[in-house]
């Protein structure tokens, strides 16, 4: 009797304890498919692809925290919880074991999901359930997603288990006997092998069912760009020629599609339309450029509009990869809580270091700061609010939600500016400083131009073989309108003064400028830590990374600034602890 009572009590307690486990509440809908029913035809395969991207969306928050909050441009407000503060201080030895933001588990869930889909695609192919073309495109896409996730894990954890088996139990990836940890360099080599082996490296063909618009979203830029990813992989591997080749393929991928404007505008960092301001350049009202009140600060015109405009012609000239969040679908947009001051929790804000970077620039009308500051950040009193993620949600002027239940937004993953800066980084390292400076400053055409010569036949072009072949001729007699003639350079498009290059040390100087330009142009978009780490590794100079984190921390009076700097001087402190918990 007594024994029974204890047993009963114990069982009740176990139930009680068990119920706090979150999985208990994951009630599957009754219509759920069982595995055997899932991969029958092309539509099932498409659903599986979309399902992978759905899971990928759940990594958005961590991706931005890892790549921006760990780096020097983004910091925490005093509303942030201690876990976020740990990431911002970036002392990896002091990160709590239960810090949910550094847990790589979700990343492995996506990887295992990819592995499962890839394995089933192979079975489908063997059973002839879809054509080789259909198989190649989908298989390559999912392989690219998996590679991207692994690259992120490698960048932030250094040593990670590399798993290609479809596992039902996520925890099984921790089996070190079966899945040894790969060092970053080993992982990178493996990822390059994986990606070079994929049978299809282009976007889905426009006739594919996966390219049909869904819920008003054009799907073309929804899928990862495999060539851009390959470019990144080779750039990490310091294989500059290969990197430049892949980047160049992306830059010219629309050259033979559509009309002339496809060729002139898409991924070309096109010049400003000064008379209409219908562009994505920094601009002012024409003939009123001296008046700071006429800065084009709008959701439909100018540089700022690229973050919130609909997927129109101009949007398509810039974005390479962008994933949407929509209130009607899961998962919910994590960025509004992180960034918005009204309707969100305003947990993160621009660092003083990032504001100083913008303030050290001069616009071409003499205004002594970079207008991208005011187009990326709004101020509430003395505190900055990052607006890149919330322009679809809040009003520019009042910063109040337009409709607090419409929490749409985008995960800004890849755009032309990043493509150009990384191409220029590769070109610069491959000996083509002048071309790199042209892409950075005022455009390829102008740096290879001779203004005194009206015949442009032999100028305004690089005269170099692929991938460094750029023809930017823009002449009237004889008439030329070459593919790159609208290229304005990143600083040209951003309306800031051009960098002066010291010829004696152009390689390092140009590279420094390219990385700084990425900060000015793409602050908070999730590539800053990558950039700092890549350069620090390439130069074998940890101070490149450590000094920048030090600047951020010391400017905000963080007493740990010196300590964190000296820790970051050794490579093992670049990597987050691999804490794996529920």
């Amino acid at each position, binding site marked *: 009797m007594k024994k029974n009572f*204890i047993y009963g009590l114990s069982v009740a307690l176990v139930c009680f*304890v068990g119920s706090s486990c979150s999985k208990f509440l994951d009630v599957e809908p009754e219509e*759920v498919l069982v595995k055997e029913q899932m991969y029958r035809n092309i539509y099932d395969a498409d659903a599986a692809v979309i399902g992978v991207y759905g899971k990928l969306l759940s990594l958005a928050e961590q991706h931005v925290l890892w790549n921006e909050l760990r780096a020097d441009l983004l910091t925490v407000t005093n509303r942030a919880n201690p876990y976020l503060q740990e990431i911002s201080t970036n002392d990896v030895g002091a990160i709590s074991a239960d810090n949910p933001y550094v847990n790589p588990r979700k990343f492995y869930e996506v990887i295992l*999901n990819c592995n499962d889909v890839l394995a089933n695609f192979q079975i489908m192919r063997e059973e002839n359930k879809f054509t080789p073309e259909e198989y190649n495109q989908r298989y390559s896409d999912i392989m690219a997603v998996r590679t991207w996730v692994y690259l992120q894990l490698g960048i932030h954890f250094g040593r990670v288990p590399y798993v290609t088996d479809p596992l039902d139990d996520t925890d099984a990836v921790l089996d070190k006997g079966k899945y040894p940890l790969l060092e970053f360099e080993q992982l990178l080599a493996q990822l390059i092998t994986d990606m070079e082996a994929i049978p299809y490296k282009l976007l889905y063909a426009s006739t594919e069912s996966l390219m049909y618009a869904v819920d008003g*979203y054009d799907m073309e830029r929804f899928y990862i760009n495999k060539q851009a990813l390959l470019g990144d992989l080779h750039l990490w591997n310091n294989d500059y020629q290969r990197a430049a080749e892949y980047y160049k393929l992306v830059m010219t991928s629309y050259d033979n599609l559509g009309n002339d404007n496809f060729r002139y505008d898409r991924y070309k960092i096109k010049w400003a339309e000064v008379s209409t301001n219908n562009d994505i350049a920094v601009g002012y009202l024409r*003939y009123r450029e001296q008046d700071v009140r006429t800065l084009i600060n709008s959701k439909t015109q100018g540089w700022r509009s690229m973050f919130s405009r609909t997927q129109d012609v101009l949007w398509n000239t810039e974005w390479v990869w962008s994933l*949407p969040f929509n209130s009607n679908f899961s998962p919910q947009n994590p960025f509004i809580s992180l960034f918005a001051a009204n309707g969100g929790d305003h947990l993160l804000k621009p660092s003083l270091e990032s504001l100083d970077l913008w303030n050290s620039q001069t616009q071409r*009308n003499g205004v002594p700061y970079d207008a991208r500051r005011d187009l990326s950040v709004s101020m509430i009193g003395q505190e900055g609010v990052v607006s890149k993620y919330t322009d679809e949600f809040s009003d520019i002027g009042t910063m109040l939600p337009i409709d607090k239940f419409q929490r749409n937004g985008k995960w800004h993953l890849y755009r032309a500016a990043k493509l150009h800066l990384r191409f220029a980084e590769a070109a610069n390292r491959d000996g083509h400083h002048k071309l790199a400076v042209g892409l950075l400053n005022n455009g390829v055409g102008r740096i290879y131009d001779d203004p005194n010569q009206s015949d442009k036949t032999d100028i305004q072009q690089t005269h170099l073989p692929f991938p460094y072949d750029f023809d930017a001729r823009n002449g009237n007699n004889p008439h030329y309108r070459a593919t790159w003639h609208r290229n304005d350079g990143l600083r040209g498009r951003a309306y800031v003064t051009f960098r002066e290059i010291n010829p004696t040390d152009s390689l390092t100087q140009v590279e420094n400028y390219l990385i700084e330009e990425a900060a000015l142009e793409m602050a908070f978009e999730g590539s800053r830590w990558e950039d700092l780490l890549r350069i620090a590794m390439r130069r074998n100079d940890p101070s490149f990374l450590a000094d920048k984190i030090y600047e951020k921390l010391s400017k905000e009076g963080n007493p740990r600034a010196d300590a964190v700097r000296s820790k970051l001087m050794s490579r093992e402190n670049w990597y987050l602890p691999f804490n794996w918990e529920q």
Partner: protein
Amino acid sequence: MIPSVLNGMNGTIDSYKYEIKKMMKKHHILTPVIGLICILLLQVGCSDPWDEHARENEGLTNEPLLERLDEESEASEFMKLLHSSGVDKVLDGNNAYTVFVPDNNSVQAVAASLQNNAEALERFVKNHIAVSTHRLNASADTVRLTMLSGKTLDFVNSEIDGVAFSKTNQAGADGLYHLITDALTPRQSLWEYLNEHADEAQNAFILSLNAYNLYDTAVVEDPADYYLNNEFLRNVGDMRDENQRFTYFVLKDADFTADAQQFLPYINYRNHADSSYAISQYEIVKDLLFKQAYSKENLPAMLLSASEVSFPVDKSAISQSVRLSNGWVHILDRSTLPVVNKLVDTYVQGEEPWGFSASVAERTFHRVRKDPFGELFTDIMIQNHGVSSLQVAYQTPRMYSTTYDVYWRALNDVQANVFQQQVGIFEFDTRPSEDNPEQEVREPIYIFPYTNVEQNNYSEVYLGEFTLADYNRIVPVLQGAATTANGNNTLVLDYLRFVPKLKTN
């Protein structure tokens, strides 16, 4: 856009079943142990916070506050006053209060003075009671408590209004009480002090502003707050406010009069002697009130008044200091503020124009620039507007009747040529034109000659001096060259600076 059915479709169900099975197998042996551990954990987990909670509420009983106070032997004298004043009815249990109870000795010391004055007694008792419960504040953060008397007392560093505690956090069902070592006799506010000392000339002048307007353009009287028509309360500081803190200096009658007479030459208001003298007095008192409370010991060497006048503090001139509920009064034996300190520069910002002689909005640019010291500034530039002698008008606050040195900072940095512009000073008040009495015009006071705007000059340029006869506002006008040629009729201005000069005689 993601069909949720497909999210995580790989094998969630299978792995889940597997876990259940694992649990079932181990059930027989492990469950009692786990159960016991859980019970232990629960006990450990719960007991700590509860203990803390209990400790925090030490002294808590369910008795009403009044009953607890009756039992407190050191409160007996204060309780007598509480009952006789009738304030005890406030503590009826419908609301929570905190009572700061002075011990019997300190109450006996003041009781005699309250005996025959019911109003003073009530105010005295209410000054010891605050709404809601306030536990002992041992931190250095000041908490301002508003007492039932309407006075606010600082509650900081384990003291209330500088009085220490002898017994703290005694709780009843409807409030708290603390025993304190001295009585909290309610102090006068600065406004009450002023009214009580209305015989002093300086105070009398401030009070006279209740009924007298310095300027005939005074605002419409506000029936809801009669005193806000007092220009001193409205513009310098509302001394009635118990939530603000002030330091107020009082000059001896002779010094106040002498100061006002000395300053009178700077105040020629419409050639009217009485009005001018009243304004001169106002100009003296406006720099004697500061919006922070400083005891004599804590006074800094220099204070800055609301109108940016630096006031040198000479502690040796302070003959008496009075502590008030909302600040301090210091009586000065002699005047310490030299006239020259009152003559502060007036700036007119180029980007804050009042009007234009022609519509040039499309050609008006508000620019941001960085000067050689790294300071950002905003200026105005009007360029390529095609108007000859284009005028931009500005306005100033009232300025003293004296001579002014005038400077501008005008940055010509986007043109390749030097151009000219000029500044004219006009009267603020309009008068009928001599040519056409129907038309109201502003007469010029002084017109400076056309002056070059040199290229890339970030320094101030001295334009010359002019004399303002009347104490009044003025209208500075910036005028472009008399040409419609673009590039030559450009106007640019960061600011105008007017430096008033001391009158020597």
